């Protein structure tokens, strides 16, 4: 029996309830938040911590922030000391050199007392609308050091003994480009923490501190024990992966996973030195992204708490991209090297799972994320918006699995706003938003197709809006194949200048064909740019990598993909070796067999 000090029924009941609290915090953030990242993308954290900052219950979102918010609790404890932390205080911290990952992800941290004794903490973050950095919205491609990346708060009381410190609140919001929007962001975090406090206090009231403290430590013990058992069952080994991010030149990230007994060592030795571009990641962020990768693969069904961290060790040499030293810039870290680390960790874990008969069914071909864009400018109602998040990452195609295709436009638990929602609020017109043909990595099981979209200005009073291009820049972003599967199409962001889009519309034609839209294409690196009249921004998110040899894919599945437009006839023939005949695309089995044989023979003979 894994549970020692609490009866197993009570354990089951209460651990379930603790998780419900984090869920309720998340719902509060979504319902009351003011930005798309919070309300639709689930890009937030809502977790509970033990009095010392250990994770008690992690919410259902990004794992990396769970670790960093725990770090934030520890920093608050150090800065204020227990004697200055009162019941009903609420703290704010966003310093990436202490605990946060980049400045716009603002942590709100709330001590929870029962009869004047500190019994735990709740913490949330949301990506606020603006943080006063050199670029609206916070991701600043031109920043070369942290000082250009917005306000940086090492810990401050936002609420003292239940009273909102209006002076502090206003001081913070006034350092941003849109105080009202940021005010709403902070308010939703306060509301979520208040919910957590009320619920946890009610549990302490009902069950008493002794049982509650025992439950939370048992939960951690429980998760740790099971996770260690699972790791032990898998053969020892060493696996590695690398990724190049293009930021004024190639920046290489390297990870080696050593699995020894019941320990997982993530070693980033060999990763390039930090750069003067905001893709550097604080060390706690690196740990957080590794935690997330373990959480979603080996621990997805366990109580999500500090027990997940215990069998893990992360080695990241100081001064590298994955362990930045002051005052290196970090503003784009989450979606660049952060997702990069997430990819590396996931990739090595998948390779590890592939050595276990029991765990290989949990393989999902890993994905090195996508490009992303945010606009800012004056909308059709004459109002300045610093944070127009295109949020298209929600439409990434997912990686293939051992026995199933990846999910088309599956994009994890995020969702993208409707085109109509975007057009209602911002001066934009979408030309298309669709699955990109031939984007999915081919394989015996193919990756999920990613989505491509294009938009231009519409009713923009200034005739232009700003854009910032971030995400994982590089030709090897997107899905990676496994065991013979092909990679997914790279994610790109292309500014097409001086296009025919408006004249096509004028001529009553839908601008859905890139060759008709025309214009001069600029593949955008990390940069600020302007979207002007007659410009079109084309974006393609990530697509899933394939699993296994495409020549072994069931020809009927290939036919289905051709009929739905996900695979072109040419690709069916050249990549899958499937010959389809006539209008109905019937599979010619004999011709297919011959074609497949020919392809493999030609491959082995080598390129002509």
């Amino acid at each position, binding site marked *: 029996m894994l549970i020692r000090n609490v009866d197993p029924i009570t354990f089951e009941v209460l651990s379930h309830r603790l998780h419900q609290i984090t869920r309720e915090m998340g719902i509060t953030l979504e319902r009351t938040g*003011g930005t798309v990242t919070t*309300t639709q993308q689930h890009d937030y954290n809502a977790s509970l911590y033990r009095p010392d900052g250990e994770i008690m219950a992690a919410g259902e979102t990004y794992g990396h922030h769970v670790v960093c918010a725990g770090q934030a609790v520890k920093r608050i404890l150090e800065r204020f000391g227990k004697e200055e932390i009162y019941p009903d205080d609420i703290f704010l911290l966003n310093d990436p050199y202490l605990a946060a990952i980049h400045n716009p992800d603002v942590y709100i941290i709330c001590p929870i007392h029962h009869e004047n004794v500190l019994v735990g903490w709740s913490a949330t973050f949301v990506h606020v609308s603006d943080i006063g950095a050199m670029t609206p919205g916070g991701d600043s491609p031109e920043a070369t050091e942290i000082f250009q990346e917005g306000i940086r708060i090492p810990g401050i009381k936002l609420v003292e003994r239940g009273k909102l410190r209006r002076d502090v609140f206003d001081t913070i919001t006034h350092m941003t480009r849109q105080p009202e929007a940021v005010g709403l962001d902070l*308010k939703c975090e306060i509301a979520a923490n208040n919910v957590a406090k009320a619920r946890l206090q009610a549990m302490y009231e009902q069950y008493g501190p002794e049982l509650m403290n025992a439950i939370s430590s048992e939960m951690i013990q429980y998760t740790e024990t099971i996770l260690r058992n699972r790791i032990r069952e898998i053969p020892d080994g060493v696996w590695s992966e690398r990724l190049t991010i293009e930021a004024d030149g190639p920046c290489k990230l390297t990870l080696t996973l050593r699995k020894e007994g019941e320990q997982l060592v993530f070693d980033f030795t060999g990763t390039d030195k930090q750069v003067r571009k905001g893709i550097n990641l604080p060390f706690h962020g690196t740990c957080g992204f590794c935690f997330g990768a373990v959480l979603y693969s080996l621990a997805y069904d366990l109580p999500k708490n500090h027990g997940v961290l215990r069998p893990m060790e992360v080695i990241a040499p100081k001064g590298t991209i994955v362990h930045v030293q002051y005052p290196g810039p970090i503003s784009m870290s989450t979606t660049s090297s952060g997702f990069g680390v997430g990819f590396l960790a996931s990739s090595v874990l998948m390779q590890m799972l592939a050595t276990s008969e029991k765990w290989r069914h949990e393989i999902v071909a890993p994905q090195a994320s996508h490009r992303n864009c945010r606009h800012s400018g004056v909308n059709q109602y004459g109002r300045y918006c610093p944070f127009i998040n295109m949020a298209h990452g929600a439409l990434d195609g997912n990686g293939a699995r051992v026995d199933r295709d990846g999910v088309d436009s599956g994009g994890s638990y995020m969702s993208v706003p409707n085109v109509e929602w975007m057009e209602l609020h911002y001066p934009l017109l979408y030309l298309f938003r669709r699955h990109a043909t031939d984007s999915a990595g081919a394989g015996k099981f193919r990756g999920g197709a990613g989505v491509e979209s294009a938009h231009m200005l519409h009713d923009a009073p200034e005739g232009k809006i700003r854009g910032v291009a971030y995400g994982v820049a590089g030709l090897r972003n997107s899905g990676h194949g496994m065991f013979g599967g092909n990679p997914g199409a790279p994610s790109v962001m292309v500014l097409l200048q001086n296009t025919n889009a408006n004249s096509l519309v004028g001529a009553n034609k839908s601008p859905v064909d890139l060759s008709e839209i025309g214009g001069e294409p600029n593949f955008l690196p990390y940069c600020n740019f302007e979207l002007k009249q007659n410009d079109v921004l084309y974006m393609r998110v990530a697509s899933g990598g394939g699993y296994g040899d495409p020549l072994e894919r069931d020809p009927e599945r290939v036919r289905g993909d051709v009929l739905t437009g996900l695979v072109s006839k040419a690709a069916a023939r050249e990549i899958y070796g499937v010959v389809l005949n006539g209008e109905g695309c019937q599979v010619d089995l004999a011709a297919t067999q011959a074609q497949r044989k020919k392809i493999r023979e030609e491959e082995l003979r080598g390129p002509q």
Partner: protein
Amino acid sequence: MEYVVGVDIGGTFTDCVILDSEGTVTLGKALSTPEDFSIGAVDAVRDAARYMGLAGEGELLASTKFFFHACTVADNTLITRAGPSTGLITTKGFGDTLLHMRGRTTEGLTETEAFHAAGQSKPDPIVRRPFIEEVSERIDYKGSVLIRLDPAEAEQAIRNLLAKEVQSIGVCLLWALSNDAHEQTIAKIVKEKYPSVYLTLSSEVAPFVGEYERTATTAFNAYIAPKIAAYLQQLGAVLKEKGLKREPLVMQSYGGVLRIEDTCKNAVGTIESGPVSGVIGSRFIGERIGLSNILATDMGGTTFKVSVIRNGLVEKDYKPVILRYQIYLTKIWVESIGAGGGSIAWIDPETGLLKVGPLGAGAYPGPVCYGHGGSEITVSDADLLLGYLNENYFLGGKMPLYKEKALRVLEERIARPMGMSAVEAASGIYRIINSHMSDLIRRATVERGYDPREFTLFAFGGAAPAHAARYAAELGIRQVIVPLTASVHGATGLVSSDVVYAYGKSEHLFVPADPRRINSHFSALVRKAVDHLRAAGFKEEEMSVVRSVDMRYRNQVHELNVPLKAGIGEVSEEEMDEVYATFDELYEQTYGPGAGYREAGKEIMAFRVLGTGLLERPNLRRYPLEKRDPASALKGERWVYFQEGGDFAPTQIYDFDRLTAGSDICGPAVIETPITTIVVNPKDRAFVDEFLNVRLYLNGA
């Protein structure tokens, strides 16, 4: 004698409730007949007629004033994907909208499912991609046409779909809610040239911003409308032939009934209308006994459902998730989890922890104790072993239960591997399932800013009365009511329904909004509702019209629905100021004090009108309260387990049929009715009220 008839078709049984003019209730039951549901409907009416001593269903139907009906045709069609071949027409460039689903894959999943990366999936598309046609056209957010729709291209798209033998076509074009000209162009072609095709326009079924949800609603409607129409027309004809004089009225998911013709225009409105009837039934009984804050809980074989009635109003949901799709549908808010009498208890092989559900044993073979070959221990098995259920009086003795078998399997599969006694295992199962249910109620109340202690809990569905006192007490609820009609609660709801037309329309307006825009929307929607009510035969004084707006702080995504004061007159700026202030209040009530942030600015996202044609409420017969010693209803004594003593104790068993209004019973006790079993815990008290509802007062309340 005149009758009011309610017929509720469920997955297994079709229930019937008859009320005569004196308020006497008669129940009827028959097996559902999925090949033609109208057969089961008539069977259930015949069953009731027989109890009433009538010659047959004809005599009953000939004297029926109102015939109310709820059907599961929409749900069945969707779940089994039994709809006709359906096509969809969209704006060029956006044909994948229904398939990408805005990326979401976890909506409607449990926590573990949501976290399970390798297990992700999307639902089977309601309309597959080859059946989706795109047409060149574009309207912007203001409703201005940017690219004109060429009728020839539209006709080609229709023909392409017809070539694939579609019988039903949905049309959802971008911004059709602001300007429906292009959708109407397509409608005109279909009506003139292909009149046999069912047509659904997004501007009619869901005129709200958001193309994914609107497309999904349109596709759902297109997919189920032909089935609904065929079924209801068949039912109408059969009942007419049997002597029914007035047209049947059909339950809608927002909790009102409509005529068949109006139902067919908006078939999507019948989704999950069955469970909704139960909520309306709870409201009705609440009205009769003077309760306006009710938690309606329904525990059947596989699912547990909760709805909230606050101040006599049912809570609504405007964007429900149906089969993992989010759609625009005004629906009574019902939250559910996989928990019921059939929920399976199991030991996690890796952790050794005892779990219950979410998987269920199903109706057949069902729990071990049914003796139909079931091999998984379920909640019902635990209930039997704890002494709550009577092995010789299940369903009034119609079905024997096998206790030894259940005990043997429990010991083998649960108790011994857990190192527990059989009692510990059974009571553990009972506790865990109760905690799952109280968690769901907590989600339905506490998470939405309501204090469960201010509510009375209604327990219906076969398994609820044996559990309700426990899952209610966990939340500090003090009174549980087991209604007399607990087993046919949906049908009870039907007979107490009103005719309701619900209309809405999106327009995005910054606050303070121009009163002319507000009035123009409201007057159009009110006119529509009033016209329909009049056509359905209602006079002005029988109508009630409620107007409301969906509001939020600027740029948020989730709205709160804020009602206006009663009336249909011109709305003044002052009145709207009050509405805006009400929003701030509602917001803090929902999300906690201090959560509101007026500085952010507000916006209106949609206008809604609910037009109700008030039907006469049926009477319920009152029985005189008598202070009689309940001992006369005593059936005997058996050993029943209660957690307070940690052991079995001799407990008195009462026969509900012999209890009279006014009977008072102190726990511990068990009350057996022919359809369910009510457990009265040690500190609780049971009281039979004047309508023969059993009220449980918890913890000495």
